[in-house]
């Protein structure tokens, strides 16, 4: 019934979307840490 193709395609799509969001989130956290550090430095 071709389920495997559908499954493969949708998992790829979701992996890519969530992967992108995950990478953005990671960058975001890194930046947040940097901001914290800078704030401490400023004091």
């Amino acid at each position, binding site marked *: *019934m*071709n*389920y495997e*193709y*559908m499954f*493969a*395609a*949708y998992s*790829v*799509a979701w992996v*890519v*979307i969530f992967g*992108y*969001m995950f990478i*953005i989130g990671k*960058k*975001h956290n890194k*930046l*947040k840490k*940097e*901001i914290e550090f*800078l*704030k401490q*430095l*400023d004091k």
Partner: protein
Amino acid sequence: MSMNLEREKAVLTGTQLSEVKSTNLSKILFGATVISMLISLYFIFIFAAEETTMHAAQKIFYFHVSSAWLAFMAFFVTFVFSILFLIKRKRIFDTYAYVSAEIGIVFTIIVLTTGPIWAKSAWNTWWVWEPRLITTLILFFIYIAYIMIRQMDGVWDKKARLSSVFGIIGFADVPIVFFAIRWWQTKFHPIVFGDGPSQQGGGIESSMLVALLVTITAFTILYAYLLNKGVSFENMKIKVDRYKEKLREELEK
């Protein structure tokens, strides 16, 4: 050329490094994305009629087409903001162009992976040298090149200027690439909408069309969310960079 005029001296004075707040808009967009995605999944898997020759594999169609739509829209937005940047020279336009290109690439990757999976299930071959597929592949390469221009070293306005120029040229190239390849060889994709010779009957059932439109809407909202998120992140990064500049100047005193 060698114009390292170090123009990035617009040091931020007295910046309050406010927390990267997820603003109201971002929250609303996130919620809308989740809801519309769930609705679109309902429409795809439950509401839409199942295709008779390809069965479940036909469901790939919805995400494939929507991703392609999103990628093209994203590149179009890059094109528009590139022009705006060259006219107005505001950094925010450049940020929008960059983030949009990045999102476009992500969804081009989805198109380029779901496409072969579809091809394998429908035509029993992974890759077909077919106009739309090749055009998408070339589009992918063009915008990878665009990102590579952004990764150049130098002051931001030089990079922004050059990548805007390339964003315009690259987008202008896309229709010509498409027509050239279409002339070169055209066999596979059935023309779904409008008249035209198509394979296996062609056309689209109304329930499928509804599901497709719902999915496209969901993807558009997802795009808005990602764009908003990406732009606020880039803005924050710019602020931090300026702040670092300021700290360094204080240290040098």
